[in-house]
């Protein structure tokens, strides 16, 4: 097992810059999720780590060895493809055994290791079936089996759950994480689904237009988003932005939102006057009749355990996650109260988060 380190990695296709000067390190045994919308460069980054794509510039180190221009076959990595990429003309056994066959491992050993791997993934009963008849989940497991049988230095996965249906995806998320806990392999996992990333990863790199916007643990990214883009990409419903126009002084502990004073974490820098946004997570909002931030109920989405209530305020529509016991009439006026310790402030022009006590120990990507 090993460490992956990429330094100033860049990839250009013609005029299009797919990945721009990215650097990060995945420590030994760590599970990193590359998260972003389609076209953000996450798959290209992964393919460069795999050696399926060669970078325009930058360096890739696998266990301190420079592998930047090695072909995939010379890197000792395993890759799980979005469409599984099973060999359709081979049965399950031959699919899983193929990486060993390529390396000239003796037949008897291949057989033993295939069976061992299949047992681990609980697919030993379908070893002699054709892969074309398998259900999505089993195909997924075969692809995983083919990846882990060789005990490679690291696993790279490109949206491996993208084609499964929602219900099954849930099951596979847990299975994948459990597998990771068991074999402890360094893993880079590409996905556009924030839920998958949050549920599985030790670290998340949020990408946008070829740039890594933020790199950190799921909690860091969720609680202290480095930019409006990250704040909006993570969470469902995403973070609410309440716009206001103001400048900020270092040490300020409150802002004026539509003439109402709102307590915020202590601001850590001076900001020239401009368009700003107060970022509030839906679960950090409580309804309180005393509050002077008021709005009309615009709609509610009942979710059983809790509900999402959309409230139209002077600063825009705000969604709050509250317990399901209370019901609302449309148009009913309510007061909103925020948890002051959890609020973030963004500069609308750059999208950047303003330094504050909330961000005291955050690394920016």
């Amino acid at each position: 097992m090993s460490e992956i380190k990429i330094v100033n990695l860049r990839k250009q296709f013609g005029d299009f810059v797919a990945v721009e000067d990215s650097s990060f390190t995945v420590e030994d045994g760590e599970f990193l999720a590359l998260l972003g919308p389609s076209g953000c460069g996450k798959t290209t980054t992964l393919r460069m780590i795999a050696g399926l794509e060669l970078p325009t510039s930058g360096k890739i180190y696998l266990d301190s060895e420079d592998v930047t221009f090695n072909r995939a076959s010379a890197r000792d990595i395993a890759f799980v493809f979005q469409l599984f990429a099973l060999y359709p003309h081979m049965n399950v056994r031959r699919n899983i055994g193929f990486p060993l066959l390529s390396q000239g491992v003796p037949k008897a050993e291949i057989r033993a290791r295939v069976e061992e791997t299949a047992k681990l993934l609980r697919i030993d009963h379908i070893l002699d079936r054709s892969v074309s008849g398998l259900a999505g989940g089993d195909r997924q497991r075969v692809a995983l089996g083919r990846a882990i049988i060789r005990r490679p230095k690291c696993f790279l996965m490109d949206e491996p759950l993208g084609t499964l249906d929602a219900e099954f995806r849930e099951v596979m998320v847990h299975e994948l994480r459990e597998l990771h806990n068991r074999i402890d392999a360094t893993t880079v996992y590409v996905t556009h689904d924030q839920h998958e990333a949050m549920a599985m990863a030790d670290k998340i790199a949020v990408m946008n237009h070829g740039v890594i916007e933020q790199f950190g643990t799921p909690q860091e990214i969720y609680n202290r988003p480095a930019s409006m883009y990250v704040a909006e990409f993570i969470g469902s419903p995403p973070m609410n932005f309440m716009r206001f126009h103001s400048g900020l002084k270092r040490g300020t502990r409150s802002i004026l939102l539509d003439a109402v004073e709102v307590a915020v974490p202590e601001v850590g820098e001076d900001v020239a006057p401009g368009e700003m946004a107060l970022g509030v997570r839906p679960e950090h909002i409580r309804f309180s009749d005393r509050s002077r931030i008021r709005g009309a109920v615009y709609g509610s989405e009942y979710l059983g355990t809790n509900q999402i209530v959309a409230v139209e305020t002077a600063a825009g529509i705000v969604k709050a996650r509250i317990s399901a016991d209370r019901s609302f009439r449309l148009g009913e006026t309510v007061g909103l109260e925020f948890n002051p310790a959890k609020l973030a402030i963004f500069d609308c022009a750059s999208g950047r988060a303003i330094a504050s006590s909330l961000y005291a120990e955050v690394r920016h990507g």
Partner: protein
Amino acid sequence: MSSVNTAAHSVVEPTPTAKRIAGTIVILYALVTMIPLAWIFLTSIKSPPDSISYPPKVVFTPTLEGFCNLFTTRTRQTPDYIQALPPPTGTCDEITRGRNMVIAGPSNYWPRFGNSLLIAFGSTFLAVSLGTLAAYGFSRFRVPLADDLLFFILSTRMMPPIAVAIPIYLMYRQFGLSDTALGMILLYTAVNVSLAVWLLKGFIDEIPREYEEAAMIDGYTRLQAFWKVVLPQATTGIAATAIFCLIFAWNEYAFAVLLTSGSAQTAPPFIPTIIGEGGQDWPAVAAGTTIFLVPILVFTIILRKQLLRGITFGAVRK
């Protein structure tokens, strides 16, 4: 997704050296296979002596003699007689007189060529029209024994044409269809329609039923839905099928040689019968061949996408 966009740049992409070597071999092969065709064209603008000289001539004075001989019938005359004629009226006249001959009248080439056009386009139109309707029927409705029927229809193409030709020859003689354009059109339509139904059924199967269902819910009848929704989406399939039918009908020889002899004869059986004095008149044959091949060449180049789709699609389905 993004992996699809970037796959073209993948390391599994052949290296520039591999591409160069592959390109060189393929281009060499292509050039070699073009030699016979180039030779046909060159021969068509040679004089008869040039065409049979040894070693074969690549450099020569081009002449239209082959084309003249193709389009005309000529008679040999004494030089005195030719001297006495009024001045020649055209290039062909002049060339012919140079060989001590005079033009006696037009040859049968253009009528035969016209037959080919009429029969090929007529049968293609019919086969594609009937085929589209039947393919839709087979694709969308439960027709009893549909699979067996389709398979049987297609398997008749395994018969050698000569075997089918015997009873058709007798039948046509009975109904007065021998050596008529109508007879040939019907025959080629019947041969092509089986392939047309087969191909088009595949194309129409690919058009989801939801489109028609949506139209029917929106207030259209099934016929209107077929016309407004299915046909526009099937156009590439129909075009691909039409090219196939056309090529078959245009090139067909066996039925044509057995069932036509005069007024309805097409070009393929006619061209080999072009005879000059003392053996085959190769420039004339080459000229006739060139003119006959040109439409198909143009077709191939213009419609290569549909053609490729049709061939591979037909192959993969069967």
